[in-house]
Each structure stands twice: as C-alpha cells, then as structure tokens.
C-alpha cells in the first residue's frame, strides 16, 4: 500500500519544484541575454553553454521534486540521495549564472535541508558512511563539473560535464555490473582528461575516480542499516507503527 509522504517531504518537493523552475528561467536568461547583463549573470565567458547546463541541471531538480512528492518512508535512502543531489545542483549552478542563482539556489538548498530533516540525521549519516566510497565518487564528479564550467572551448566544457555527470550517476545508481560501471567511468572521464592533460588535476581525478570506482563497485550500493524512523509529522500513529515494522533492517 502506498503511503502518503510526510509534510516535510511535500514541502521540500514544492521548494525544489519552484527552485528548479526558477533555475530553468535563469538558465534561459544566461543563454540568451547573459552577455548583456554581466553584473547579474557573472560575466561568464561561455554564457550559452553555462545557460544550457543550468537548464539541464535545474530540470533534474524538477524530477527530484516529483520523487519527493511521491516519496514513502521506506525509500529514505533514495531521499538522502535526492537531498545530496539538490545540494550539488545548488552548488554547481552558483558558478554558472552569477547573482541570478541567489533565489533558486536558496530554494534548492532549503529543499535539500528539509529533505534531510525529514529523513533524519541518523539516516543520512548511516547512508553516507555505508556508501562512503560511492560518496567520494560523487564528490569527484562534482569537482569534475566545477572544472568543466570554467573551461574553454565549448567541446571541452561538454566533455567535462559528461564526465562529471557520469561519475555522479555511477555514485548514485546501484550498479550490479561492476565491469560495466568501471569501464563506463574510464570511458567518460578520459576525453576530458586527455584534452586537459597539462592542467594536472583532471587526469589525476580520472585516475583516482578509476581506483575508487573499482573499490566502490565491488559491492552494490547498500542501504542504511539504521531502521527507518518515521518523521514526526507523519499523518497517523498507525502509519508510524507500520513503518517501523516494515523496515527492521532498514529495508
């Protein structure tokens, strides 16, 4: 039986939806008139590419918002990842559209924090510690995105964005096929590392991502060992009882 998501998650979903929608608007503004409003758009060298990136990332937060609205307590591990993703998008886009990102960024950060509050700190900590290597992989992906948005020309930006997104995807998605994931990691990070070999950090990041990717994918992503504790604002006491019974091992 599908349960109604807690109020906090509904609130987080709405915040993410508004933040994501405004984010798309700022991305459109950056891509179209960004060079004419440099004091607002951050005076970027590649406003079109960065605008498109902002649109794409903001669109993913709309999907995250949908997930939050449909959430159930038995999927807290997913909610933790959604929270992290919202924070990553908020951080990355703060470098792409300048001051235009203030309001969408604040909304997304608030949505991430609200989601985290709904899941509980113990759940977050347990989720992160039990998937620590995957978390590192995701962090490397965020670093790759950070470097990509500061690169030139557009082809190099694209290679970096694909590499960063792939690393984050590999970190977030539970992958049963170790060989496929590792091969994919190498394949997607190599082009960016190759065209920026002289910058030292991108090829170093690729090597480290490869090593961590192997270690992280030796076992599939685990869900938290912490039992799901229903958030305090669930709709009914019985709801809480069912939740506790249904997830004795965090599943």
């Amino acid at each position, binding site marked *: 039986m599908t349960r109604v998501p807690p109020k906090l998650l509904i609130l987080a979903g709405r915040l993410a939806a508004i933040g994501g929608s405004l984010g798309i608007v700022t991305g459109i503004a950056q891509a179209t008139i960004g060079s004419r409003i*440099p004091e607002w758009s951050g*005076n970027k*060298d590649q406003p079109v590419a960065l605008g498109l990136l902002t649109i794409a990332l903001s669109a993913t937060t709309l999907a995250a918002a949908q997930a939050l609205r449909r959430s159930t307590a038995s999927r807290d591990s997913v909610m933790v990842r959604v929270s992290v993703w919202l924070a990553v998008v908020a951080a990355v886009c703060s*470098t792409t559209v300048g001051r235009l990102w203030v309001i969408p960024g604040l909304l997304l950060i608030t949505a991430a924090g609200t989601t985290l509050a709904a899941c509980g700190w113990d759940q977050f900590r347990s989720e992160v510690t039990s998937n*620590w*290597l995957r978390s*590192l992989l995701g*962090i*490397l992906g965020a*670093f*790759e995105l*950070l*470097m990509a*948005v*500061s*690169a*030139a020309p557009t082809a*190099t930006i694209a290679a970096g964005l694909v590499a960063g997104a792939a690393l984050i995807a590999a970190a977030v998605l539970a992958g049963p096929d170790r060989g496929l994931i590792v091969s994919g990691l190498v394949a997607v990070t190599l082009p960016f590392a190759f065209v*920026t070999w*002289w*910058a*030292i*950090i*991108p090829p*170093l*990041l690729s090597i*480290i991502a490869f*090593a*961590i990717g192997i*270690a992280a994918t030796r076992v599939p992503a685990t869900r938290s060992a912490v039992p799901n504790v229903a958030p305090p604002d669930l709709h009914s006491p019985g709801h809480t009882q069912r939740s506790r019974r249904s997830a004795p091992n965090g599943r």
Partner: protein
Amino acid sequence: MTRRTMLHHIGVGAATVVVAGVGAGSYRVFDNGVLDAGHGTAYDPWTNWRDDATSLGTVAAAILAANPHNTQPWTFHVTDDRVELFTDPARRTGALDALDREHHVGLGCALQNLVLAAAARGLQPSVTLLPDASDPTHVATVSFAEAPMVVSDLHDAIDRRHSNRGPYTDEIVAADVLATFDSLVAGLDGVGIRWFATPAERAGLGAMIIEATRAIIDDEEQSTESFAWIRSSRDDTDTQMDGLTLDAQGLSPLVLAAAKILPASTRSAGDSFWLDQTRTVHTATAAAYGIVTVADPDDRAAQLDGGRLLQRIHLAATVAGLGLQYMNQITERIDRDAQLGNPSTFAAAMDALIDRPGRHALSTFRIGHPVRAGRLSPRRPVSKVTR
C-alpha cells in the same frame, strides 16, 4: 577490530584525503581559470579590434601595442578627423621607470599601431608629437585625411604580436633578416638600431642584463614597483585588465598549470624566479639582441619615435615568425642611478658596449625563434581609455 577491517579503514581514510586534495586542486583550476587561459572580457580587445571602421577603431588597434609591464599608460580623445594621445600619469611605474622613459616608449608603440590602423581604414595619418608645450601629458595628435586604404603586413600582425618570454631555439636569426629590420627606421628622425648577434656580443650584453636584474631586485623600491604589476589570480586579471600574468611568462603548459594551482608567490620568490629565468632562459637562449639608440634618451620626442620603431620591429618580427622580448633592466638601472645621484656605472658600460659615438641606449630587446607561441596579455577596452 580485525586486521582486514583496519586496512579497510586506512584505505578509505587515504582515499578521503586524496579526494580532498583533488578537491582543493579542482577549485584552484576553476578559480584561477587554468582551463580557459586567454578567454574573457580582458582578452576581447584582441579579437574585436577590426570591428570599428571609424577613427575610434584606430584606438582599438593602438591599445594592443607593446608597453612597459602592461601598464597601458594611455588615454585617447577621439573625434572624426583626429585622435589625441595622452599619458595616464596614474600608470607610471615609479622607481622602476624613474624618468618615465619606458612610459613614453610605450606611448610611441601605441602611436605606431594607431597610424597603421588609420591607413588600413582609408585615413591618411599626420602625426604631430608633443603638440601642446603647456601640457606635457598631451604627447601626440594624429590628424586624418581621406586616402586610399593601405593594409600592410605590419597592420595584419597587430593581433599576433605578443611579448615572448619563453625559451628560443638555437637557430640563428639570419643577418639579412636583421638587415630588413634596419629599414624600418624610415620616417623616424634620430633613431637607430644596434644589433648584438655574435656570441661574444650576446655574452657581454647578456651578462650586463643579469647584473642589472640583480640590482633591481636588491633595490626594494624598484622590486616593489615591479611586483605591483604582477597579476597572479584570474580575479585580478578580470577586474584590472592589465599587468603581467602567469600566462604571459612563456612557461611550459605543465609548469604554467602548476603555477596557477599553487598559491601565489611572494615578492621575493617572484624576484628569484625572474632572476633565474633571466639567467637560464632569456639571456641563455637569445639568438640576438637589438638596442634602439638615440642621441638623447631623455628627450620625449626621441622616446616616442623610439617606441614607434620598436613596435615596427616587433610587428615585422611577428611576420617573420620570430619571438621578441623587451629586456630593459639596464636602462631601468641607468635612470634609477640618475635619479638617486649614483655613479653611472651601467650608463658607461652600456655606451661602451654600443660603441657608437653620440648614440645611447633607449630600449633593449632579445629576438629569436621561439620554442612556443607567445600568449595574450589582458587589455582594458577602448571604452575605458577614451575621454
């Protein structure tokens, strides 16, 4: 805790530390523009300088000229039929250029680009140096008359000309190439060029340049003035659009990236690096030196004409595929000694090297076949230098 568990924890901890290190490096790559050198508003003047066909467009060419420490010491007043060139006193380099010699040589370089750009726009330029005796900041007026368009090789090289501070190959610069540069003095009164192309001549001048570099570093005021124009961060470059950047130092790609990722160097570290580069790269790989000579190096008109000749030579060298770097340490020490009332040791030694009675050094440069291409320097746009 089992041994296996302990090893696992150590491995995870090490991975965390490594990822944190990569994170710090990634941020520096992002923040210091390691992956997009030579892009951005500060570099736009190198690509849009041909866009304006009016007299204002001549200024767009003028601001791409060589100038001391990339101070861009100019302002322009533009009308339909003339451009007036002024110094910007706020952009002096103090003790480093004690008598404003380089300041005015740089203005001469800008004047030359302006003249070339006028001809390429169908404007016949007529140059009057120092037109207003009551205003020493007004260094030149260029009046225009309609004429057929004259687009020269030198004009087309304006956006390819960059100071090349990297190493040069051991290939010599042929004597006939240097001889063609001699003809570039046409129309400029009282300026000449003295070449130092033999090994003995290069060794003598190179040793004096190294000695002068040491003297500048030992002079705290000169060292401080020099360091003030170093731009170590991308933010500084983007906001100030002037000065000497890491990109323009002629470093190999790996060393350049490392220099940008690591923390900015101190003045003393920068001085040591400069001396080391002067000794092991600049003087060690120079295929030849050139010295622009004049009768009176303190004469403003001679400085402006000397600057025009320097710019012509640099553009011609660019057309010929040669690299060129200004090496003015000796003349900087000559003027500093004069300012302080010190014995003129460098002046006497330089005159002896030039060995041309009645001729003195105005400005020095090295030339050669570059190992790698020179990179762009930031420029303030036309809108910021016109009044």
